[in-house]
């Protein structure tokens, strides 16, 4: 019995990581209706930037966030203004194709720069530390990851609903022309949204790199997990995205408990069941 409880608790904590994969994806879709196929590869890019920063400067991966987050935010802004803004318009296909191409380019650039060898970020004692809660043993790193996911989503909610920047995001999302009339340059607002999304990606990438080994090819899988978390939770609902990540995580750990080979499959099945029963996700945003 306790093993099952353990599987569920571990799944919930794993869900925090998936919510971090998903948060940036959801933000971008919400503000500019852009589905970023390269999102998973950008997470891996952030992990590699973390690797370079930690090896060159000899600092802890969590300290490296202070460098990787602004770096990813800068990459996001330039990417949006230099490339992705030109793909946005009436048609949904150009951004899909361009971000798919970007995904291939990022993967191959990473392969060229870092080889295909699996890498890992070394966070020291925190990786193996754990806290005993009753009969359960909770890893400090998964707890930290989950706490980070909650903090990131709360932070994004705060930005969206309590700051001028978030007001601009919502206005541009509602009506680009009228927002432009009010003095907001949508090209700049979109750039800021992508910068924010990739700053979150930096957190996701570093936590992923500390948790497991990574190589240039695993971005696609992270993209799928992120997508599934967003869709399960319901588009446009940040806390729903966290719930989606948790459901996905729990499905995976329970699947793995039944048979280790079923971990990923069980997550996909949970996703398909939600999609079949509630096509808009469990907590779709209510439009007023």
């Amino acid at each position, binding site marked *: 019995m306790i093993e099952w409880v353990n599987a569920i608790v571990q799944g919930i904590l794993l869900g925090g990581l998936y919510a971090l994969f998903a948060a940036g994806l959801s933000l971008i879709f919400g503000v500019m209706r852009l589905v970023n196929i390269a999102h998973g590869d950008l997470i891996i890019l952030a992990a590699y930037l973390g690797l370079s920063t930690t090896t060159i400067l000899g600092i802890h991966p969590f300290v490296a966030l202070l460098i990787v987050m602004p770096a990813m935010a800068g990459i996001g802004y330039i990417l949006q203004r230099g490339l992705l803004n030109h793909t946005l318009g009436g048609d949904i296909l150009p951004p899909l194709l361009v971000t798919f191409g970007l995904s291939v380019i990022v993967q191959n650039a990473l392969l060229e720069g870092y080889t295909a060898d699996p890498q890992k970020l070394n966070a020291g004692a925190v990786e193996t530390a754990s806290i005993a809660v009753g009969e359960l043993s909770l890893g400090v790193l998964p707890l930290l990851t989950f706490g980070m996911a909650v903090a990131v989503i709360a932070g994004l909610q705060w930005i969206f609903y309590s700051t001028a920047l978030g007001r601009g995001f919502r206005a541009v999302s509602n009506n680009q022309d009228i927002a432009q009339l009010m003095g907001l340059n949508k090209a700049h607002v979109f750039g800021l949204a992508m910068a924010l999304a990739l700053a979150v990606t930096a957190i996701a990438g570093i936590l992923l790199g500390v948790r497991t080994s990574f190589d240039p090819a695993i971005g696609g899988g992270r993209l799928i997990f992120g997508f599934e978390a967003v869709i399960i939770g319901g588009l446009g609902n940040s806390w729903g995205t966290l719930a989606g990540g948790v459901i996905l995580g729990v499905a995976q750990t329970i699947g793995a408990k039944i048979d280790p080979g079923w971990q990923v499959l069980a997550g996909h099945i949970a996703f398909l069941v939600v999609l079949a029963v509630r096509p808009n996700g469990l907590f779709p945003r209510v*439009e*007023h």
Partner: protein
Amino acid sequence: MSEPLLKLSGLDAHYGDFQALFGVDMEVAKGEVIAIIGANGAGKTTLMRSISGLLPNRSDQVTFKDQPIGSLRADQVAYAGIALVPEGRQLFKSLSVEENLKLGGTVARDGPWSLEAVYDLFPILRERRNQPSTSLSGGQQQMVAIGRALMSNPELILFDEISLGLAPVIIKSIYQALPNIISGGMTAVIVEQDITKALAVSSRVYCLQEGRVSLTGRVEDITRDQITAAYFGLAA
């Protein structure tokens, strides 16, 4: 006449292959209130979109305070001092009443208009400040749309069909508020299908017909028959 605040010179506008405006010339002096009238499809809204930068023009086709602004983006035009109250109100539906107004204040030019001034003009909005903008009646939404445009403290404000779809009593109260808005030295261009309403508040009128100016002059110099002819394209 001194150099006009806004000047259109041979303004053309296109939607793809369709040409909506043909060589429109227009001058608006500082402090004037101009009415633009015309039938559906005459090009009134297109004219508003062109002036406000939502439709691209050639740079010298629109001049504002002696500066060519025809090729500026809408946000740059807003910073230059032109605000538009768009047709159909077009509030941001996920923003509250107050957030809509604050967003209108993004440009934040110097001037008399602030949240408090807008609430004094339309007191009902103060009560509804935290409600979703879509929960308001049509007339109240129009007040938000007007307040949102005023928040940037524009020198020129464009009203596009502000009475469209509203009850007569609401239209009356909105038109009663107009003198308070314009008395601060603001220049206004009012696009309206309700000719009587438009002429009552303006000093000069332009009538558009199929994308061209078919009649222009001082309100007191123009007869009803001339307007009818210019409006429908009948021989005068």
